[in-house]
């Protein structure tokens, strides 16, 4: 009887996730414009992706994105969280300040950065240009567009990690920290040998989630550059979106989505294995 309790979530998962996901996998082997009947084409969609330079640009950008988000925000979050731990006074105030950007809707954050910071007409970049500094809008150059978007996402994201890490750090038993201090460990040694190992499971989880999220990234890229200029900030999800809704190549879009899912799946396997290990311990 108690097994019935899983039924509601199971039904939701099947209807909203499993069936559409399976359909997407099936569609990846069809040519379909989203209107008429699909035609089976075997591996043609994947072959076309293999030969498509934009696909490789997008994949590379996703990998760069993953590397950026595996390092910078996690390092910033950890640093700020340990600072908060040391300077307890005002920590809740700083937590709130750091956390605030994540509460703001993505579209608004994107527009604020685009219009009020990066824009050479209405933004800070424009003010500096008029004051004689040679400031350019990073979103408009092929070499910097992706980093310009990553900066916005970082701004919005790292505070979240900081708050998570801070919460985890507070769970590290005070006796361990106390003992380290009594043994004469320096601050850095305390971090290295007591605090970091204490919150390792949290860091691992956040890193695995980062990999999954990085391959799903869409919102900031689409709002700020739509993958441009000249595909320089294209990621797999914007590429899939363009294929489905602009090129009317739904099969190709499904094939791209399958590639995205493969990376997510890989990360999920890692996560589940790491978790299983923890349970074993």
């Amino acid at each position, binding site marked *: 009887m108690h097994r019935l309790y899983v039924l509601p979530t199971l039904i939701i998962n099947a209807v909203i996730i499993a069936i559409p996901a399976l359909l997407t996998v099936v569609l990846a082997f069809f040519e379909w414009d989203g*209107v008429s*009947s699909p035609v089976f084409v075997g591996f043609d969609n994947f072959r076309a992706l293999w030969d498509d330079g934009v696909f490789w640009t997008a994949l590379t950008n996703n990998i760069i994105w993953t590397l950026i988000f595996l390092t910078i925000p996690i390092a910033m979050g950890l640093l700020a969280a340990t600072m908060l731990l040391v300077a307890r006074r005002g920590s809740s105030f700083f937590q709130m300040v750091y956390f605030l950007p994540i509460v703001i809707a993505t579209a608004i954050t994107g527009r604020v950065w685009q219009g009020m910071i990066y*824009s050479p007409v209405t933004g800070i970049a424009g003010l500096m240009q008029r004051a004689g500094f040679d400031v350019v809008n990073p979103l408009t150059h092929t070499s910097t567009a992706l980093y310009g978007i990553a900066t916005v996402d970082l701004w919005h994201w790292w505070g979240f990690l900081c708050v998570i890490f801070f919460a985890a750090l507070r769970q590290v038993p005070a006796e361990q920290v106390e003992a380290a201090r009594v043994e004469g460990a320096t601050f850095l040694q305390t971090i290295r040998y007591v605090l970091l190992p204490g919150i390792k499971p949290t860091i691992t989880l956040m890193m695995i989630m980062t990999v999954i999220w990085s391959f799903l990234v869409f919102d900031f890229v689409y709002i700020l550059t*739509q993958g*441009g200029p*000249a*595909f320089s900030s294209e990621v797999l999800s914007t590429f899939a979106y*363009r294929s489905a809704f602009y090129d009317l190549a739904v099969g190709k879009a499904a094939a791209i989505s399958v590639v995205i899912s493969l990376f997510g799946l890989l990360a999920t396997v890692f996560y589940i294995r790491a978790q299983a290990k923890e349970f074993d311990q």
Partner: protein
Amino acid sequence: MKTKLYLIAAVAMLGAVHAANAQDRVTWWYEQATPAQQKLIQDNIVEPFDKANPKYNLSIDYRGNEIDKQLRVALLAGNGPDVVYTAGPSYVAPMADAGQLLPLDDYASKYGWNDRILKVFLEMGRYNGKLYALPKTYETVGLFYNKTLFDKHGWTPPKSLDELEALAAKMKDAGITPFAAGNADWRGANEWFVTLALNAVAGPENLNKALRGDMPWTAEPFVKSIDRLKSWWEDGYFGKNYFSLTSSEQAADMMASGRAGMMPTGTWQFQNVTLYGKKDGSTAGFVGFPSASGDPVFPLGIGSTFSIASKSSDPDGAAALINFVFSPKVYGSMNSAWQGEWNIPLKDLSKAEMTDEVTPLFTQTMKTLSTAVKDGNYGYTTWTFLPPATDSYLINGIEQVWLDKISTEDFLSKLDETFQREKKAGKVPSIPAR
């Protein structure tokens, strides 16, 4: 007790259904419109239509700029509005092919559309010999210029591409950006310039051949067109903030303020040109974009189209609405207040009354365009005549050419490859004979 409640609910629902049936609801999904624009539609279309057709009750839903995606999904599911409003003929072809649209030929003869609407546009709405769509508005791209600035410097609007380039050089010397342009709000703005280059350099005859599949897009005239456009980009005609400026307001402001001298864009910009001209105290002029041979070319574009869903519960009501919009009265009232979006392709405009507020420049431009269309002397806009994937590649690929990521030849060969594939799949909209 419970049974009684159910009964009451059922009766109430029946009543509601009955009330809805007394008047047939005609549904129409419209694209994005500001509250002021929605009011114009309410005052000039909805209310007069309901009054003239007591049998019907028109209901408009404003769906924003993602309307075509929503329509596609809704029609696939067999839902959606009675009046299907697409962004152009290239959207109509796949829908007609899938049997989602009703042929309009019977309504056309019933209402006499064939006599009232310009022939070219009827032909563009045909698919496999049947009429599926009527264009709501037609447009062209040309060259706006800051007349005040031109007078001050003693410049005249260019009459050939060489003159255009000589003038641009003078502007750059004076510290003025030649073209007011941007694509931050609408990446599709890229194709306005590709359209101009293709029509000005390769010319409409070659474009017609390529669109029919009689000439590849890799042919020499097209290489020359893209190379010339690229040289304009490299010479800084588009300014250094192209990717940051919006194609509508900020570009118009840039020209009106004199920071840029000219603005190659479409007739839909008339509203902004007037607005920012007033703000910056300058007047604007408009000429056809000069061609290599000298005569200006007017590339023809269709802003949006009307069709009727095959699953529509009230096709007669939908046809009555379309017929109502195609009247001199609606042409006059909508164009008086909202220029560029309601340039309905009527043959006879002598009964259309416009208010004095409309700039003579607009009326004159539309007259020139309509004459060019009647004489078969028009060019082709990429967004109206290219199939979806080709058009989408053109918009993004041209940035790669501009920014030196690929060569003109590579760009055109990929464009051609995409075009031939879509042509084979029957996705190219119908191209009227010249």
